[in-house]
């Protein structure tokens, strides 16, 4: 899940500047679970806007905000409300907000409207208990869990070390974050339990940052072959002419 946190009212009003009429968009997935982009939160923000004399011309929870087809349809559905809007605030993750911003910029009836993020996107994580989320994966591009007993050092070690503990732990706690156990001690315990402690003796090479050249893109093989087929057909058509 993508963990988000709502920006402060102050930050949001600074973004909105002189806008008078605003459209609020939320997201039915991660942002709803994180209580940053569900119906409830949109209503709360609407209340704040109203006390400042701003008007909300439409409110819509996208299902979900990161799906272009869904967003396109939703924007068409509120075409009239959007017509007089000065700004759109998107309460989803950064991905959802960009999907919205891109489509808003492409559609004739909306391209002049600025889109602002209502949330800060924090990390990819899991729910540990209601209202508490912990980062679990940094989407590093080469999953190391296979030799670490299923515990991620890239994410859970404050220094992202791959060759074992830094030596700074206090007791069992991490030097950087006293609330967390040093992840390398957890990995050691787990590897001992599954009889794979020797994994720790192998020198791990530095990470390959070529896998992290941003923005990253991933194309499925089925997509590639479909593209090739299309190209070949187009070429055949031309040749026939």
């Amino acid at each position: 899940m993508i963990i988000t946190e709502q920006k402060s009212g102050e930050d949001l009003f600074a973004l909105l500047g002189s806008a008078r009429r605003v459209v609020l968009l939320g997201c039915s997935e991660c942002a709803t679970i994180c209580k940053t982009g569900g119906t409830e939160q949109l209503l709360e923000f609407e209340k704040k806007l109203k006390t400042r004399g701003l008007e909300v011309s439409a409110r819509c929870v996208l299902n979900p905000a990161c799906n272009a087809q869904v967003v396109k349809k939703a924007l068409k559905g509120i075409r009239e409300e959007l017509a007089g809007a000065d700004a759109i605030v998107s309460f989803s993750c950064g991905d959802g907000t960009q999907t919205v911003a891109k489509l808003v910029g492409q559609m004739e009836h909306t391209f002049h409207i600025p889109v602002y993020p209502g949330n800060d996107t924090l990390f990819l994580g899991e729910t540990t208990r209601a209202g508490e989320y912990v980062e679990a994966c940094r989407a590093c591009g080469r999953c190391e869990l296979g030799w670490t007993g299923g515990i991620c050092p890239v994410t859970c070690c404050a220094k992202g070390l791959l060759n074992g503990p830094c030596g700074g732990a206090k007791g069992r706690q991490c030097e950087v974050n006293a609330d967390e156990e040093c992840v390398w001690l957890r990995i050691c315990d787990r590897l001992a339990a599954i009889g794979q402690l020797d994994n720790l003796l192998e020198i791990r090479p530095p990470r390959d940052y070529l896998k992290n050249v941003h923005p990253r893109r991933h194309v499925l093989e089925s997509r590639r072959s479909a593209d090739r087929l299309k190209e070949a057909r187009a070429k055949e058509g031309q040749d026939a002419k």
Partner: protein
Amino acid sequence: MSMLSEVLKIDRFAVTAEFAPPKGTDMDHMRVCVRLAKGRIHAANVTDFQSAVMRISSLTACKVVMDEGVEPVIQITGRDRNRIAIQGELLSAGVLGIKNLLAVTGDHPKMGDHPNAMPVYDLDSVGILQVATTFMSGRDLEGNSLNGRIEFFPGAAVSPTRQTMMPQIMKMRKKITAGARFFQTQAVFDLDLLREFRRLTTPFDVPVLAGIVLLKSAGMARFMNRAIPGVEIPEGIIARMDRFVGKERMNEGIRLAGEMIRTIRDENLADGVHIMAIGAEERLGQILDEAGL
């Protein structure tokens, strides 16, 4: 040739001391302290942005140490530089004729005076040792050839603590594989722990210098227990320091350091000591007098 490596090779009890470069361009105090230590230590470690605090770089301060006639140990952490900058820094060390190298991971920026800085850790201590090793074979990390020869005596740090002994020793073995030819430990105060560590690491046949920190008060000991990564000071030592006030506290710290060094040498608990006076480098001579070195 590195004098430190020679001393360790002939099994003489080695003595190194730590010097932190100043914050600002005035090197006078550091020069004075290094001059005082000259002839009494085998090499001077120069820390690399110690405790993640921005200051003069290790490379420049190593040059100053050399100018004073003392052999430096350049410390390089993985915290602030990526693999390109680390390799460049080590090549530069080679140009200056710096032989001893201590590869360390480095305290997190959060612990220092620029807590918002980006933590790099592109290479860890093992990766930095690999750089030194590949350099000596005439190649960089990517296998490209280097012109000119470069010679290092690479070492690494180890933190023997009760709770992390096993993983620390496993990492130590990796560091040896990566090229570490000597070790300096984090501050040790618990000699039983050091005995255990000696027993476990003797088979590796790589010299270890035990870290000795000069305690200046019980308050400093408590602070270190709370805030300095990898340090564990037993209650007994804190109680001993607690009995003294004013100037006597420093004197007791010097006696304590001297006693520990004597025991370490007499019982062969390490192949040498690495003294960290932390801001009281001018007292180094007194510690060595107390230790009978």
